[in-house]
Each structure stands twice: as structure tokens, then as C-alpha cells.
């Protein structure tokens, strides 16, 4: 406060102190905004976006007994966003009696895929080797994508458990990706859905759709508009929308109330920070 008792100086001091608050205070606020909705179990209803609807419709159009290649290209770092998508896709595909060939270009992918199958398959009476198979992981990124599209057997001579390709009943007659009706890619980054579009979508007549982390969502819109992707889920919200469409609420929908409150907190932070900035700037000028 100045000698004249000018309150503007005092207000500017408070404003400046508020704008420099310890970051750990912000962390506590974020933590509280995330935890409280989870603890009270708040439920929300989501509006469904066209990219999500597009993928849902593509899966709905699959005839029973057809094959889908499920590329689980993600790792535990993206679990909260992509694991609910993986679950939702498998639920939807099993409910349509579609056979799933799962594989991964990320080393941690196959165990995550397998967990999903072991949770979901018994509910639909699905059997490993007859209705779904986990071919495991293969290093090689784009090389594996093209290799799988041309010769699945040569790329994955054995499945995740070491069973030879030829000994898996549902893979009889399946030689490459042209034998599947849809590629569904759950993608955490590189290699992922962008590379599937670049290497496979234009060369081979198989539609591609999938889910990505929200970080990658905006850059996929050109592929949606061009038709190279039939549909796309982005982040936990995308997973929640799909769960809502298939009427199987899960981890995606469960987290959306917490997501809402943290978003509001971040927006308040941005607004407050800029209000303090403009007050401080006006005071200095």
C-alpha cells in the first residue's frame, strides 16, 4: 500500500500474488475436481458426434460371421482413453456375431487385448480360436501393416500363445486383410491409425475406423472428411459416446462427470489468469 493509501496499488499487489499462487494449490483444486464426481458417482448423458456415429453405423452394417481386424496399437499410458474403446468395440462386434482377429504393433498391446477378450467373451459365449484370436505383437510398424495386408499368415506364423496359424480354426481361408470387412484400430500414437490410413486405406479395399487419444483427434478430421476413415472415436468422450450408442455404459461414461468438472476448473484458471494479467497490465501502464 502506498503512503497515500491508494487502494489500486494494494489491489494490484493482491492481484499479482494471486497470479503467482503456488502451483501445488492448483494441483489440489484439479485433484478435488476430479475425485469428487468419481466418489459421488455422478452420471451424465452425452451428445453423439458424427464421427462416432459413422463408426457405429459401419459396425452395425457388418453381417454375422464376417471378420474384423482389431489392431490394438496402444499401451498402458493411454489406458483410460483407449481401454474403454477396446471394450466397447469388442462388445459391439461380439453382439453382432462378428469374428475378431486381434493383433498389435505396440509391445504392450496384446496383453491389454487379451484382458478385454477374457472379460467380455464369456458373456457372449465366444470361444478363443473359433470366434476371436489374438495374434500378438509384431515389430516393424509400417512394414507390418503392409505385410499383414498382403499376407497375414507369413506376418504372424503363430498367435500370442504360440499356436501355429494353421491350427487356429477361424483363420482357415483368411490370408490377408482383403478377407476382412473392416479394420478397427485403437491407436495411441505412432505407429497407429494415421499409418494405417497412409499404408493400407488407399492401397487395399478395406474400410478403416477406430479410436485415438484426444490429443490426436483434431488431426484426424481431414481423413474423416476425405472418407479414408469411416468413423473415429477421440478420447474418453468418444468412448463414452460409443458406450451410450451400444447401451453398455462403462469406464468411458463413468469418467465424464469428472472430466466436465476439471474442464470447468481449467477454463476458470484461464479466465482468472487473463483477468489478473489485464488488471496488472493496466496498473503498470
Amino acid at each position, binding site marked *: 500500500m502506498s503512503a497515500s493509501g491508494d487502494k489500486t496499488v494494494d489491489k494490484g499487489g493482491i492481484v499479482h500474488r494471486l497470479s503467482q499462487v503456488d502451483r501445488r494449490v492448483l494441483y489440489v483444486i484439479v485433484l478435488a475436481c476430479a475425485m469428487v464426481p468419481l466418489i459421488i458417482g455422478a452420471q451424465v448423458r452425452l451428445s453423439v458426434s458424427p464421427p462416432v456415429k459413422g463408426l457405429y453405423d459401419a459396425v452395425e452394417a457388418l453381417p454375422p460371421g464376417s471378420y474384423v481386424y482389431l489392431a490394438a496399437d496402444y499401451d498402458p499410458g493411454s489406458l*483410460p482413453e483407449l481401454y474403454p474403446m477396446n471394450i466397447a468395440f469388442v462388445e459391439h462386434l461380439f453382439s453382432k456375431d462378428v469374428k475378431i482377429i486381434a493383433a498389435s504393433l505396440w509391445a504392450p498391446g496384446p496383453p491389454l487385448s487379451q484382458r478385454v477378450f477374457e472379460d467380455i467373451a464369456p458373456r457372449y459365449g465366444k470361444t478363443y480360436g473359433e470366434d476371436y484370436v489374438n495374434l500378438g505383437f509384431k515389430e516393424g510398424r*509400417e512394414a507390418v501393416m503392409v505385410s499383414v495386408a498382403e499376407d497375414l499368415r507369413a506376418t504372424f506364423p503363430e498367435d500370442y500363445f504360440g499356436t501355429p496359424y494353421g491350427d487356429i480354426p477361424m483363420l482357415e481361408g483368411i490370408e490377408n486383410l482383403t478377407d476382412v470387412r473392416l479394420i478397427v484400430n485403437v491407436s495411441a500414437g505412432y505407429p497407429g491409425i494415421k*499409418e494405417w490410413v497412409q499404408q493400407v486405406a488407399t492401397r487395399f479395399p478395406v474400410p478403416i475406423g477406430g479410436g485415438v487419444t484426444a490429443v490426436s483427434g483434431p488431426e484426424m478430421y481431414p481423413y474423416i472428411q476425405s472418407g479414408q476413415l469411416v468413423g473415429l472415436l477421440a478420447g474418453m468422450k468418444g468412448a463414452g459416446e460409443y458406450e451410450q450408442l451400444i447401451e453398455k455404459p462403462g469406464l468411458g461414461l463413468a469418467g465424464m462427470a469428472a472430466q466436465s468438472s476439471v474442464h470447468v476448473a481449467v477454463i476458470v484458471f484461464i479466465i482468472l489468469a487473463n483477468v489478473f494479467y489485464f488488471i496488472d497490465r493496466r496498473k503498470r501502464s
Partner: protein
Amino acid sequence: MKPLTIIVACVVLAMGLMGAAAGGLNGQVFGTWVAALLTLAIFSFLYKDNPVYKLAEHIFIGVSAGYVVCLEYWNVFIPNLWNPLVSGQSYILIVPFALGLMLFTRFSPRASWLSRWAIAAMVGSYAGFAVIGALQGDLIAQVRASMIPLYSADAVASMSLARTANEYVFAFLGILQNPLTIIGLITTLIYFFFSREHKGSLGVASRIGIFFLMISFGASFGYTVMSRVSLLIGRLHFLLSDWLGIIQ
């Protein structure tokens, strides 16, 4: 090792043993306790960098590195290389085997030039993939998808069908969709053309391109916040549900 580290390590170990005892040495319960304590150890970094976090960080690096090697061994080395080679299916696989082993000459300053052969094989292959992917997946397909009419009769017709304020707003935005897409694409490309100074009409177009870029960066920031928050929600859900059992 600092005394604080030893004390903290003992506290963590004691909590882990309590958890194991609580679960009757059940593998799953013990595993959940291990996962929860490691999660809290990583979260402790939010307060400040500390020995518990560093311990967990180094365990993570070691386990992740070991994990990758085992996966490569069982999923690539054995089925794609070793089995076909020793069974006589494909003796030519001795070539990539040799090239792969040559990579390890990088540890020897005198022999490291041999690793270039393997690196060249990888780089050449993946450069080829990059050229193909960029050409057909990004360049040609995206340019083709940009050939859209400025005027969309359907969009104009939807304006006359609008009844509510929302419908008018979105009908108007629908009319703007194609022209804005074309203008946005062209001005963004002009912004990235640095061979001429951005003055005059080029400068105006470049500035419009910057506005479109700022909108796209803002959208990306919004989605990035969404993504990071989802990750936090996932971990909290694990702690509150699987570990503490507070929520379903």
C-alpha cells in the same frame, strides 16, 4: 543412499507387507497394493522431486526395458527368425540375422561402421514407406478431397427449411462450410510458403492462414486438456475402486 531414502523405503515396504497381510498374501491383492504404492510414489513428484519418486522412476525404466526385450524375443526373434532358420524353411534369414548382430558393433569405435549396413536397410525401407504413405495417403487423397464446390445447393436449401434460431445458425454455418474449408486450406499453405516475403496480397492471405492455424491450435489444446484429464481420471478410478474400494 541418504537416510531419508532408507526411511521412506522402509515405510513403503511396511505398507506393502501390511497390504499383503491384509490380502492373506493373495497374489491379486498384493499386486494391487504394489500398483497403488507405485502410483502414489509417482504422484509424489507433484509435491517435489524426491527419493521415492526417483526409486519408482528407475524401477519403471528397468522393467519397461526388460519388457520390450522379452516381447521382441518371443514375438519376433523366435517365430520370424529362429524357428524358420533352424528348421531349414528359409536359410536366407541368415542375412537379416547377421545384419541385426552387426548393429551391436556400434559399441566398438573401430567396428561401428559395420552397423551402417543394418541401419541403411532399416532407413531405406522406412523411407520408402514414408514416401508411399505421404504420397498416396496424405498428398493425393487430401488434395482430391479438397476439390469441393464453393456453393452447396443442399446447404442453401437447408436455410429455407430452418425454423428455430439454432437451425438458422447451423444452416448458415453449413453454407460457409465449403468456402471456409477452401479458403482455410489455401491460406494455410500460403503461410508456409517462405520463399517470398509475406507482403501485400501474400501478406494478407498469410495472415488469414495464421488465424485458421490459431483456431486449429486452440482446438488441439482443448483436446489435449481433455486427453490429459482422462489419464488422471483413470488413475484416480484405479486408486478409489481397485485399491480402496470406495467406488464401484
